[in-house]
């Protein structure tokens, strides 16, 4: 919680327009928006928590559950789609058994769909941390997940 206090001191004016930047900073710090954080931000800005949730759920960026230990970003841009990202996403969904934005029950994995990441001639692109997997095919997914499980367990 002390980190949230540090963030809040940067927005001393406490005006409502700083809500989105505060939420963004908290999410960068914690990885997600916890209930305690939202309550604290509400008290700071003098806003009801329902209003904050109403705003935060509108935007794609915010998540309300912790991300998995390994977080995958899958490009859902048009070029990757043309190059066959749809089967990749479908296979990922079947392999992990969760929807985009959710975390697997064992806490190992979560994944999100992003707009173009810039690797259009290398698509479909899947990004794990700083590593970019390029030319991913649906049949590569189970093996990739098995390998990443090891990485997730190290964390």
């Amino acid at each position: 919680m002390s980190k949230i206090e540090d963030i809040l001191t940067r927005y001393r004016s406490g005006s409502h327009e700083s809500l989105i930047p505060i939420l963004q900073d908290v999410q960068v710090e914690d990885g997600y928006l916890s209930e305690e954080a939202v309550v604290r931000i509400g008290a700071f800005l003098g806003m009801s928590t329902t209003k904050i949730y109403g705003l935060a759920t509108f935007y794609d960026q915010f998540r309300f559950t912790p991300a998995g230990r390994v977080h995958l970003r899958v490009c859902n841009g048009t070029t990757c789609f043309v190059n066959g990202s749809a089967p990749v996403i479908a296979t990922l969904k079947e392999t992990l058994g969760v929807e985009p934005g959710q975390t697997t029950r064992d806490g190992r994995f979560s994944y999100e769909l992003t707009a173009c990441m810039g690797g259009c001639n290398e698509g479909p692109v899947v990004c794990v941390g700083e590593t970019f997997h390029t030319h991913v095919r649906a049949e590569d997914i189970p093996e990739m997940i098995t390998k990443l499980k090891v990485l997730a367990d190290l964390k």
Partner: protein
Amino acid sequence: MKGIDNSEIRNFLTAEVLRHGSDRLPAATEKRLAEIRRDRPSVPVIYVSSGSAAVIAGSRKSAAAAQEYISEMGMKAMVVMTGCHGPAVFEPLICIHLPGKNKLIFRNITEDKIETLLNGVFHNDMPEEDLVGQSGSTGFEAWNSIPFIEAIPWFRLQKRVVLGNCGCYDPESIGEYIARGGYRSFLKTIRNYTHEEVCDIVERSGLRGRSGGGFVTGLKWKYALNSASDNRYMICNAKESDPGAYTDRAVLEGDPHRLIEGICIAAYGIGASNAVIYLKTGSALPLALLKKALADAREYGIIGHNIYSSGYNLDIVIRQEAGAFVCGEETALIGSLEGRRGMPELKPPYPTTSGLYGKPTVINNVETLMNVPLIMERGPEWFRTMGTEGSKGTKLFFVGGRGRLTGLIEVEMGTTFRTIVEGIADGVRDARLFKTLQIGGPSGTFMTESDLDLPVDYDALRAKEIAMGSGGLIIIDETTCIVDFVRYYMSFIHKESCGKCIPCREGTGRMLEILENVIRKPITEDSNATLERFKGVMQLETIAAVMKDTSLCGLGQTAPNPFISALNNYREEFEEHIFDRRCRANVCRGLRTFSIDVDKCTGCTVCAAKCPVNAIYGTRLQPYFIVDDKCIGCGICYDVCKFSAVTVR
């Protein structure tokens, strides 16, 4: 790899260049600037591109390897990181400039190729297969028997104005930008022109907003300037919502300082002392570059209080959007900046009269603002020499999809789309047939073969009901299913609809549902579902028309565009899906049935092992078979079979 910026250079640039009143600089100053620009390097210079596309292809590792090679050999040479040159297929792209010689351009130089490449270049044993060509001007010695890049259509057919600096300088270095003539247009502007004159010059140049609408930029500025108010705001929309294009981001990564200069001039033009850059979220590299560029500009006194004793104050801040497609719409963008849900509002009042915090606000996109410093430097008449009657200047496109060459391009207005597809992108890859060109992303349209002869021109396209969009061009070949593509865009829009007005919120959902029914697996369908499917199909066109007429903002009004243009141009493909339950591109999962040819199957078990739903059964070394009820049509078995035993119907 260290930038050239230090306090000595800063003092020189601010005192001798930026404070210098007239356009012409003394010869001694020019000579020093040429040194900073590395016009005639005394040591070999290795330029490595470092934009997002290059980083994904591994350019940072290549740069590190080059640096290591130099220090190992004890050579005097420099490695410079630059923005992207444009051709994404060539990344990591490396440019080598030996003293007195023309520049050499090499493609796809990954980490492991660096040593061979540098050995080759320094010992005159060129690695031919990695070479793109040489580029140079007078005064440099040409390489023998190496083609000039101007011979390649990709380079010859483009006109690089906005991209003029991209790939030439280190985007982290403000000093190099100033040495290339940067920030002098802005200082000239605030010294010599009034606000009205700036708006007038930009209006006379004929510059039109590049975000899709094509509104005359100078006129928009005038509206804001003429709205009585004590404060005004300038917003640069760098959000770039189209999921398939990254023109703005590439420009930002290659030349962040010119964008800042454009914002400065625009803010001065409308009399604003606050400007906001509304940046896309999740793009770490542009954010870091912009932050550094703004900090440097502040240090050089280009933004701040009483800029170069002109009495003009300007502050620029970066705000990151939070991930909502609809926030590209002006009123929604303002709502999001004010800390509300990004929902569009009724216009008028337009933002130019009542925008951010109720003050007059101008919103321009990155590409528009990139043109502004050049117009102020070279004059509106120069800008009018490029382009067509109604559309002046150049246009950036991101050419993606199935073209042989993909990447960021800039063409003069009036160039035909055929030139782009067949010339610059060099046709469709893998010898496939061209099917359609998608322009403008999820709100855009499909262009058929015959539409390719249209020029890049706002009015010519509008006459054909095609929107220019923000710069996404996707080349599509026969392996993509149009119905599936329309469904992909509709699912995107449905997810991004803000939910304020009913035509958009319900219309997109209903259209998506009907399109999904069309490509659903027939085997699980009962007679009632079939009836529902047909009822839906009959209503698709009506829903599209209602959405177009009655939605509140551009998002809803343009959402049916891909569907309408696909139906007009590729009706037979829709009918095949609906009546014959067949997908000619073999893409739609539900409509595919797979079977195993018993004569070809060797029973190697690969398909059974890879099948995600265990729908393939059999005994080892005997022919396998697929259970249709379980099969989800993913096609993995088809892709992995080494004996072509799996057939698709």
